[in-house]
């Protein structure tokens, strides 16, 4: 019974004289390799050149600010609850008078820490967040660490810098497909 039509029948006929001399076969093979010799190379020279990973790649975490530069996070703890690796911990604090330009709501995260050795970059924290505060950036990796005291990322490394705001490349399926279509190695 034939399951697919992809199988190739082995040609078991005796070789002709030209085939026995190997020369036509060798010439054909050399032609194929020469074609590849001049063809475009598939290599991306990694540290200098990076492939576009797509608009929904889950990389480095970021704690967003709103348009006026106030922290969106209210330290509700839903991300820590959602986190399957228990990587997130936070300490909540109450906003006092005069801090209205720093924190958007009455409660904020006095400290917010992510243990990057525990994090599995599943993105459940950004799904759980009711305030659209925590995101996994698509354009930045968590850098390599070489010692354990570099592992826990605090607010100084996580909160968004207003001079370099983070923006998603695409929010809809159509936008994303358009981006993928023009995917090519990009120099970052």
């Amino acid at each position: 019974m034939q399951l697919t039509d992809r199988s190739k029948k082995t040609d078991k006929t005796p070789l002709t004289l030209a085939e026995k001399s190997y020369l036509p076969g060798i010439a054909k093979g050399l032609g194929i390799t020469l074609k590849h010799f001049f063809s475009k190379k598939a290599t991306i020279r990694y540290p200098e050149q990076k492939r576009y990973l797509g608009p929904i790649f889950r990389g480095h975490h970021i704690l967003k600010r709103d348009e006026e530069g106030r922290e969106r996070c209210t330290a509700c703890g839903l991300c820590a609850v959602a986190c399957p690796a228990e990587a997130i911990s936070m300490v909540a604090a109450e906003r006092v008078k005069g801090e209205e330009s720093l924190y958007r709501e009455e409660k904020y995260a006095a400290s917010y820490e992510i243990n990057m050795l525990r994090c599995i970059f599943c993105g459940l924290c950004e799904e759980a967040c009711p305030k659209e505060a925590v995101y996994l950036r698509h354009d930045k990796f968590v850098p390599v660490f070489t010692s354990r005291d570099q592992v826990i990322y605090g607010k100084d490394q996580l909160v968004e810098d207003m001079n370099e705001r983070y923006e998603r490349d695409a929010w809809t399926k159509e936008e994303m497909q358009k981006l993928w279509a023009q995917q090519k190695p990009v120099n970052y």
Partner: protein
Amino acid sequence: MDSVFIIKSLIILGIFAISLTIAAYETYFERVIAAFIQDRVGPDRAGPFGLLQPLADAGKLFFKEDFIPGMADKWLFILGPSLAMLTALMTSAVIPFGDSILYDGQEILVQGIEVNIGILWVFGVVSLGVYGILIGGWASNNKYSLYGAIRAASQNISYELAMGLSIIAVLMMASSLSLRTIVESQHGMNWNIFYQPLGFIIFLTCSFAECNRTPFDLPESENELVAGYHTEYGSMKLGLYLFSEYVNMFISSAVIATLFLGGFNYPGMDWVYATMTENFGAVVGHNLSTLAGTLVFFAKIFAFIFLFMWVRWTLPRFRYDQLMDLGWKGLIPLAIVNLIITAAAELSGHALLVNWIGLGVFIALVYAWSAIFGTKKTSL
């Protein structure tokens, strides 16, 4: 000291240095060509375009532990790679890399030594080359190494026969064993490859086998024999083995270019010589045209080195019985036929014409034979 002597020493030193440099860069280009053929870019980290890669490799090999297995024959274990390297470097002595240099009223040949048995020297030394492999493989006291060594020995002996027979045809045309005379007999575009395409193919195939290059790299086949004769080797002793292989590749490319592609001859060389001597005077013009010839010779050598690597990354390895079949039942009879055709052509006085007619008649006869007596091609 005699200035002629100094120039001669410089030439010999130059040939020595050039063959080592080319061998070192062959390792780099082997990797780059392999990468290009496989749609990659190859080594590009050490220096611009990775050009310092051979230095890095050599440095690594020098600083690795120089280990000699406990049950190995210590002195033979050291002698093996030394002999391989020595014989690889000795061959280049007789190859004419260029015409001659006029200096101080004397003509100095661009060649290590001009002996009237040049090609015999090459053959003798190349046959010695297998000793390095054999001794190394035996001294390792490892059955895979021994297997590799024995394979190398039997393969080299088998293919030397066909190689020698195809060379005899060349020798008959030049009626000399001297490589310089052979080159000079191919003046201009009068190259031997046009007279003996069959002999050229046989010689090329045999030199692949002599260099232990793919598709004939059975002595060092990784997946059958771990690594063949150099399984037990490490550090610079392994480096010497690998290096001698690349020197051998350079030398055999040079020999092929000398015997079949006219060495330092190129079309229009008389015109170049005349213009050079006219414009720069007899002495400088002569030396400049010698330089041009040498450059042409190296271009031919590089073309063959590229062919060696190109074939390596195209063809898979032969099975051992196929290798022996090809050598004994294929190439040796073909070489004898080539010998007969060349002899007839030389006697007839119209060498080029009769050579091609003879080849055509031979192919027609083989076709007729296989049509009448051969197995019919039946579809299964």
